[in-house]
Structure formats: structure tokens, C-alpha cells
């Protein structure tokens, strides 16, 4: 049975990854999950300098999901290179670093700093709805997305995954723009912008007012977008958005994802990723699927 998938020349032992920002750099969850079992660890967004992030409350619960407005707090790329990469290199898993910035230059700086490290791939977060400075604009206009993608591709030594925002009218158009600009792969979806109001205090539940919605509630939107994007481009897709268990992971693969990432559901079930790795093998056995790649886009 083959569970290996390949994205832009990088081979993953299985398609199960962690979604950026929900798994730190793997340290915390390594108490629950053997990181060697995972296809890849995708890190929290890293910027050129340390970011403070947003004031609290930063998270709020919603029906079947959650809102977050962390605001990309991160220790900056220097600390990341010194501390987090060596930690992750102890494990037999791939390292995908999520990159954030406020300007194109910010992104390019991080990409260049990571060029000589043992990072396997870069995931470019142009879709975070929680940062005032508006990096999300890169991810909401096809022209901007094209520009930033091509500039990053010029500097990047590792393959580049562009992470798309679901807060757009036409995801296929965005996917095509990223591909045309040279992106090696896409990941989607990032969170959908949402809001919660406390009706007793008549205040916003999040200090940032709006936050990103994630969790099982958004899964149907994510599956639809993965499907639409996968029909619009040839490059591989990493699917995410509400994945909780094996069935969800398979659903995303059938929709067109070559790999899948678990986000908010790590918080609900810290063992989710490891269970999924096993679950996928069981599903393949049950339906006599020799090669997991046969599942990709196999919905009719």
C-alpha cells in the first residue's frame, strides 16, 4: 500500500499535515503525537521580526467552530531558525514554514533567510484576516496575488505553496493567478472572516472585533473551494478547513487535495493527526486502494 504523496518534488510519507498556527512548531503537540508519523509539520506564521500579535481576547467559540484573531504573534525568523528548525530536524517528517509579512519586502526577507536552512517548503500566508496592515489584500486580488507570488518565486530556494483566502468571490481565479505566477502548490482554505458579539455586555467577543472562523462549521465551504481550485489548476493542493477525522481527510482528497492539514481540531483532539494516518490506511484497505494518489480528485 502506498501512502506517499509528492508535492513539487518533495515526498511526504503520508498526506497528513498540521495547519499553520494550530500546532506551534510541533513542540507542544509532540507530547501527544509522534511527529515521525506525520507527513509534514507546518509551522505557525513567521515574520522577519518578532510580532506582538493582537490584544486579548484572541479566541472565541462558535457553533461547530471557533474564531481566532491571534494576529500572527511570532518570535521572528531568527529565533525560529535557531530554535524551531533544529527541534523539527530531530524528526523524520517534512518541515513547511508558514511565512507572513506586512509588505512584500517583509515576505522576501523571510524567504531569503530561510533559503539556506533545512526547510522543505515554504507556505506563504497572504490570507490572514487578522492583521490590520492588510496582508490579506495580497490574497484577495488576483493581480496582487500574482505579483507577490512571482516576486517570492524569484527569491525562494524551496518550493512555494501559496495559501489562499476563502474571503473571495472566485477562488478559481485566485488559484489560477497563483499558478500563473509560478506557485508550486496551493493550500486552502485559510479562515473565513467572522464576528461574535456578546449580547449581555454588548461588546465584541474578540478584541480585534473580527476574527477567522475555522473548524467543522466551515468544512463544506473548504471542500467546495478545494474542488473548484483543483479544477482550475494543475499544481497540487493541500486541503484544510474543519478536518476532524479520517472521513474528512478522505473527503478533501476526493475533492482534489493531494494532502490535507488539521487545524482547529487539534485543539479538540490532540491525537487527531496520528489517528488520521492510521485511519487512512484502514480506509485504503477496506476499499482495496493500492495507491493513495488514486483518491485525489476521484469524486464523480
Amino acid at each position, binding site marked *: 500500500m502506498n501512502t506517499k504523496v509528492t508535492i513539487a518534488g518533495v515526498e511526504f510519507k503520508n498526506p497528513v499535515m498540521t495547519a499553520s*498556527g*494550530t*500546532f*506551534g512548531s510541533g*513542540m*507542544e*503537540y509532540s*507530547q*501527544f503525537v509522534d511527529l515521525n508519523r506525520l507527513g509534514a509539520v507546518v509551522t*505557525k506564521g513567521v515574520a522577519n521580526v*518578532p*510580532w*506582538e*500579535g493582537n490584544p*486579548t*481576547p*484572541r*479566541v*472565541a*467559540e462558535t*457553533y*461547530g*467552530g*471557533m474564531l*481566532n484573531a*491571534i494576529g500572527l*504573534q511570532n*518570535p*521572528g525568523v531568527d*529565533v525560529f531558525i535557531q530554535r524551531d528548525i533544529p527541534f523539527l530536524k530531530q524528526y523524520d517528517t517534512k518541515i513547511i514554514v508558514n511565512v507572513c509579512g506586512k509588505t512584500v519586502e517583509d515576505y522576501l526577507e523571510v524567504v531569503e533567510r530561510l533559503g539556506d536552512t533545512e526547510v522543505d517548503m515554504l507556505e506563504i500566508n497572504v490570507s490572514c484576516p487578522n492583521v490590520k496592515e492588510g496582508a490579506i489584500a495580497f490574497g484577495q486580488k488576483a493581480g496582487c496575488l500574482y505579483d507577490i507570488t512571482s516576486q517570492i518565486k524569484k527569491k525562494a530556494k524551496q518550493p512555494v505553496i501559496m495559501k489562499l483566502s476563502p474571503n473571495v468571490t472566485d477562488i478559481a481565479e485566485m488559484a489560477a493567478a497563483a499558478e500563473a505566477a509560478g506557485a508550486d502548490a496551493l493550500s486552502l482554505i485559510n479562515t473565513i472572516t467572522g464576528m461574535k458579539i456578546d449580547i449581555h455586555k454588548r461588546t465584541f467577543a474578540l478584541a480585534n472585533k473580527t476574527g477567522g472562523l475555522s*473548524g*467543522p462549521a466551515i468544512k463544506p465551504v473548504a471542500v467546495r473551494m478545494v474542488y473548484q481550485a483543483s479544477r482550475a489548476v494543475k499544481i497540487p493542493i493541500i486541503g484544510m478547513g474543519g478536518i476532524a477525522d479520517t472521513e474528512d481527510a478522505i473527503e478533501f482528497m476526493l475533492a482534489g487535495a493531494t494532502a490535507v492539514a488539521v487545524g*482547529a*481540531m*487539534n*485543539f*479538540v*483532539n*490532540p*491525537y487527531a493527526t496520528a489517528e488520521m494516518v492510521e485511519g487512512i490506511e484502514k480506509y485504503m484497505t477496506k476499499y482495496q486502494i493500492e495507491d493513495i494518489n488514486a483518491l485525489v480528485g476521484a469524486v464523480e
Partner: protein
Amino acid sequence: MKKVKAKVISQAELSDDIYDMWIESDLAATAKAGQFICVYPHNESILLPRPISICEADREKNILRIVYRVVGKGTKELSYYRDGGDINILGNLGNGFPLEEVAGKHVVLMGGGIGIPPMLQLAKDLKRAGEAEEITAIAGYRNDRLFLKEDMQKYVSVHVATEDGSVGTKGNVMDAMSALGIRADVIMACGPMPMLRAIKQYAKKEGCKAYISLEERMACGVGACLGCVCKTKEKDEHSHVNNARICTDGPVFNAQDVEI
């Protein structure tokens, strides 16, 4: 640290909307005063774990006690659990109170409202360690429906403050402290933010140490999501910015180290 399906041993209502639950789990064996567990609701429409402080841990019997106030859907559900029922918990989380700070000192434990529960295990552990010169507890309540006072009195002397003045000093724990002329070398506290702010200020003025347990909305409970931060005076070692994670770097902090 692990997530386990544990058994509810008993449940009782202690006061208006305040419940007392004993849980059977080997997490008890390693639980420290000031640590907390996360409870995952069975209701699948609400996903996030609910952080609840460890009120008591009987390390021989492998049983844990939590005392909580019903405020929303999650704690409402908890209050319906019956003996023998399943409860999904993650523990033990966070760092406890620094027991090594008390040798030869007068330690004052201050609990306000639903901040009282962690003070019970703390009282027990401080008493057992026997290193503090003196241990005094001050518990602040809304009214005369006191809870956990008798439990604490088994280990330390307990003073009471009530908002309505029906028992003990009228006012909050700080009012009781000054009314009774109590002087602390070390304060260990848990309670509402205004109380914690007052303690921080008092400690600074009086030059005593204060360790306070903070609360914030949490998503992961294990340090991964960065949801639960508090502002710190110095750059935090993990985050490299002035934010510490309450779930893993706290919930107990030296009051002078955090901006509250």
C-alpha cells in the same frame, strides 16, 4: 500531559450555580496546586476545552476535585453529569504555585469567588510541606452562601469577606486584609481581575511577593495556539515578545512580571 476519558465519582451543588465534582483519574497522582485541567463538552456543537482549576487532588486515591460556576453551555452540561458518567479531560496543565518560595514566610492565600477552589489544594500542600512560618487564608464571597471554607479550615485559618457584609468583613479580600491587620510576606491568589490588580499594587507598595493565577480565553490549553496570552513586563523567553501564554507559562505568575 494527556487527554483521557475519566469517570465522574460524585457531583453536588455547593452554592447557587456552584458545583463540586470528584473525578477518578490518575492525573491526580501528579497534580500540583494551581494547575488546571481542561474539560471537553460532550455536546459536539461546542468544541473547545473548558479550563477548570484543580481544587483538590487525592494522590493516593487517584481522584481529582473541581469546583466550578455554571456560566454557559459547557459548564451547564458539566452540571448534568452524574456519578459513573464519562468526562473527557486533558491534564495536568500549567504550572502550579511556587511552593519553594515560602520557607519561613507568612503566606497569605487569597481567593475571590470562583477563584477560591485552587486555594484549597494549595492550603493542603503548604500545610503538609510545613515550611511556611504561618499560613492564613482569606476567602471572598458574594453573600453568606460560603463554600469550601470548612474544607480549607482543616489546614489553615480562614478569614471571610462578603460583598453584602453578611459574614466576616464587608467588602473584598483586600478589605479583610486591612481590617484584620494581616501582613503577608508572600501572597498567593486567584480571583477576579480587580482583586488581582489590587493585590499587585499592594505587593509592590508593601514590598512583598505576590503570585497570582490569571484567566484568559483558551483554545488549545497546551501552548500551541497563542490564544491565551497576557502582557509581560519583560520579553518572554518563548515568544520573544512581551506576551506569555497563560496556559503553559502560567496560569500562576509573579504579579510584578505581568501587565494586568
